[in-house]
């Protein structure tokens, strides 16, 4: 179940200083590439021999990948932005507080000093804490290969546990998050309070008009092979009166759409499903409470 920690295997190492140099390098290399950002997952996986890259491209020195900016009505975040920089960013706090809230207690302070937002998404853990809020916020990611650049909605980015649509010669350069006014709620359940991997996490963004849910977007982590958007809940709640009953119904849907892997350790399938229900209920109640005061 858990691999032995060994000395790092041998690899070739490149450290481009610009996206241009990176493109040139990617054209020359044939594969077996791992990008090194924070390294908090990659180095551990290499020591465990889960990943044995032939080539490591260290993207930490590419200044163009480290920024937080507001352009028109979107927040653009460079992929090598450290989690702690995101947490401290007033642009993020003011425009997309849901993200701040979700990553504030991700791992530990020293890890957040190293780990990057792009790395958290590319690692594609089913329980990645940054994913549910970004899914709920309709974020997308920019993928750049030597000859191409494309924007992929985050909802299409994850394809399986630790798998994404990113190709080996593509680098995730930025995350684009639309800014919207509404209420936010994030909750995670770990096995302890500090430094805990989420067993289940739920993020929601919502707008309530009068006493009806006008728009709710909700995403869950830890309940399926990838972080998921709960479209069924969103459709069900649209235009529906805010009530214990409607929230309870939404929570039941959360449970029914949860399909945690049977091989997932750290919690049983039954517990994860049950917690998807509890957290969904609590997240929706928080939004209802906040919006209606």
């Amino acid at each position, binding site marked *: *179940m*858990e691999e*032995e*920690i*060994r*000395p790092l295997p041998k690899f070739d190492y490149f450290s481009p200083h610009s996206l241009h140099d990176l493109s040139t390098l990617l054209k020359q290399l044939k594969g077996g590439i791992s990008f090194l950002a924070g390294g908090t997952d990659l180095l551990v996986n290499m020591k465990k021999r889960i990943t044995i890259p032939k080539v490591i491209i260290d993207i930490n020195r590419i200044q163009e990948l480290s920024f937080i900016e507001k352009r028109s009505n979107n927040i653009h975040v460079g992929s090598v932005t450290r989690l702690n920089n995101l947490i401290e960013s007033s642009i993020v706090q003011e425009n997309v507080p849901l993200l701040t809230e979700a990553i504030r*207690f991700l791992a*530990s302070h020293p890890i957040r000093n190293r780990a990057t937002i792009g790395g958290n998404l590319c690692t594609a853990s089913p329980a990645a804490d940054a994913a549910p809020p970004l899914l709920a916020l309709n974020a997308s990611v920019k993928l750049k290969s030597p000859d191409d650049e494309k924007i992929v909605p985050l909802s299409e980015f994850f394809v399986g546990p630790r798998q994404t649509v990113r190709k080996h010669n593509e680098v995730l350069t930025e995350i684009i998050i639309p800014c919207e006014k509404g209420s936010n709620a994030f909750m995670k*359940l770990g*096995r*302890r*309070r*500090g*430094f*805990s*991997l989420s067993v289940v996490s739920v993020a929601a963004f919502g707008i309530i008009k009068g006493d009806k849910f006008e728009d709710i977007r909700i995403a869950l982590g830890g309940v399926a092979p990838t972080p998921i958007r709960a479209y069924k809940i969103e459709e069900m709640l649209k235009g529906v009166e805010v009530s214990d009953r409607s929230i309870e119904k939404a929570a039941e849907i959360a449970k029914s759409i949860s399909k945690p892997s049977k091989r997932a*350790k*750290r*919690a*049983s399938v039954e*517990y994860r499903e*049950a*917690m998807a229900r*509890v957290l969904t209920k609590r997240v929706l109640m928080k939004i209802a409470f906040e919006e209606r005061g």
Partner: protein
Amino acid sequence: MYQDYLGEVKKLLHGKDYKVVGKNVIRVDAIEKVTGRAKYTTDFIIENALIVRAVRSPYPHALIKKINKKPAFKIPGVVAVIIGDDIPGENQCGYYLDDQPLIATDKVRYIGDIVALVVAKDKESAWAGADAVEVKYEELPAVFDPKEALKGDFKIHNRKSPGDVKVIKGDVEQAFKECDVIVENIYKPGSQDHAYLETEAAIAIPEAQDGILVISTNQGPFRTRNAVARVLGKPQSQVRVITPYIGGGFGGKDTYGPIISSLAAVAAEITRQPAVIVHTRYDSFVYHFKRCPFEIRFKSGATKDGKLKAIEVDYLCDCGGYAAHVIGLLKRAAYHSTGVYEIPNCNVQGIAVYTNNLPVAAFNGFGNPQMLFAVESQMDLLAEKLNLDPVEFRLKNALVPGSRTGTNQLLDHSVGIKELISKVAKKADWVKKRSKQKRWQSETKKRGIGIGCSWHGCGTTGFKHDWAGASVILNPDGSVTYSTGIVEIGQGTITSHAMMVAETLGIPYEWVKVELNDTSRMPDSGETHAQRGAFIGGTAAVDAALKLRKKLNKLASEILKCDEDEITIEDGIAYSLNDASKKISFNDLVREMYQRGISPAEYGFIKARRGYPDPDTGQGDPYAAYTFGCTIAEVEIDIETGEVNVLRLYPGVAAGKILQPDVVRGQINGCAMLGLGYSLTEVVERENGKMVNPSFTDYLIPTIMDKPEIAEFISVEDEYKYSGYGAKGVGEIAFIATPLAVANAVYDAIGVRFYDLPISAEKVYFALKRK
């Protein structure tokens, strides 16, 4: 032979208040530790030291058919490959029993059993070499359940059990007939990892005259020295063990220190070059020995007036592939199985069983957390049946001076538990909070409060020796060089030693320098475990300092021309109590000692005042004194998620004189956190006896965010007269009480009793669902 040290010291000080003892002095190691300058074992690694990597068995139980070293030598950096037959001395490293070869030769008994060592010039070569060694095994049937091991046809050693214990007192059968309430349950407290910050490591360096120096992470420098001498076939004088600061021990390095040191020493001896072995975190989790899981059937009975009459206990300890520490903890658990109560009739039988699990280590509490989890759960269950308040029920039965324990030991003094329970209950506002009527709760949350009482014999259990030395040298400038055989494992003991030396000599605490622990300058002082660091080791310090103080008093009286009894020494000045103008400074006094040819150095040595219980009945005096603990916990349970949130802990100890309150508070708060982990989150998950959650991601020790509010500790200073300044130990007691209080509080909140630990959120969730 046993001095009334407390009385002697008080006489010397002419009944005045202590100047140093009991004060919050700055720990001797504080500044260098918080500034990162303190050196730990791996800071002493010298350049070009060879790297040692163990080849470990992938099978839990197998015969070793053949070991082929040759392929390892194809790796360029490999210098030596060592198998059991190459060991220069005796291939044996058992702790209490000679059942464990350092390097297995005929068979392996757990996943991780060592079959060879590869010694290489660098880390990469050592690892590659260890992979390259070819070992042919023939698998044998393996067993991981101790009950199955006891019944089935498994032959791990030539006997199924490395040892057992009995405590037989009174007539249990008759007593149960007279009981109005009887409660019987099976408890299964599990394993736990020490999870210390510093992993196991050892450096061995060949020294002059064929000697060998070992610098290592250990809690028993002398046991380590003796173990190394044994495997090297050298006299103990040829091995010197230096023990630097240790980054956490908790018992784990008591068990594994001698082993890892022997591995480095064998490599250094064979190559005659410095050699180093350092465990990665993975190695530490998977291979260092851990807390012993227990299965306890516990039956207890009381009369309707709330008096405990009898206990009948039988329990199994799963010791894994080798006996290691099990014999001691098995006995300790039996000798404490009455809890802090007077129970006239006892029939307690414990047995350790070999399995193919990872062997077990000493670990804070040493069998008591497991046994007392059962004891204190039973107490609450009995109280409920008797319709008595748990605190009231405990007070009715608690030990008092004059009580006899389950082993029939007469406790003539230093028994503060009864007062302690009352004080802790008062501080926690027990009566009000326990009342169900006014208790706060919500739709999703319920609160509860619970109590746990513990006791822990100070010093090693009465079947092995318990002695310690110390030395004090007065330097010509009046400064003092102090050495002890006790190790600083983070607990703060050496600070309390320095304080007691300073107080006894009448000088400021800052004048005492505590030397790094070195076996070549001290007689065997045993291990730093069993709450004996201040209790035994500190008394040896007082013994040495007292000898010098008497000389100083005599000399001062001669110089000042007054009676010896008039002399006192305070803040580095000796003077006459009758005429304060007759005075001489401490440094002048010491210089005069040198001038007159009076030895300015003394060794102290003491032996614990206790006996050896009868092996058939367990009757006798296994410990010199007992420390008592009492903790009350308040919990809040999320009934939708099952999360147990410990809101507040109220710890208390009756540990004799509190030598340094900050150090004791540190111990108690640390113990509380260790106890929370054992209560709520820490599980050693195993497959074929091997730990399969060996990382801090999955082995869940509490973080600072999990820390509840911990109230200032209550202390009942029930001084023990045969120890320096009347101190007892505190290192384990507060840990033991925590899980007991938490488990009882959980029951109080939700009416579900858990018979095993930890009480994880998921477990609570499913238990509530079933309910």
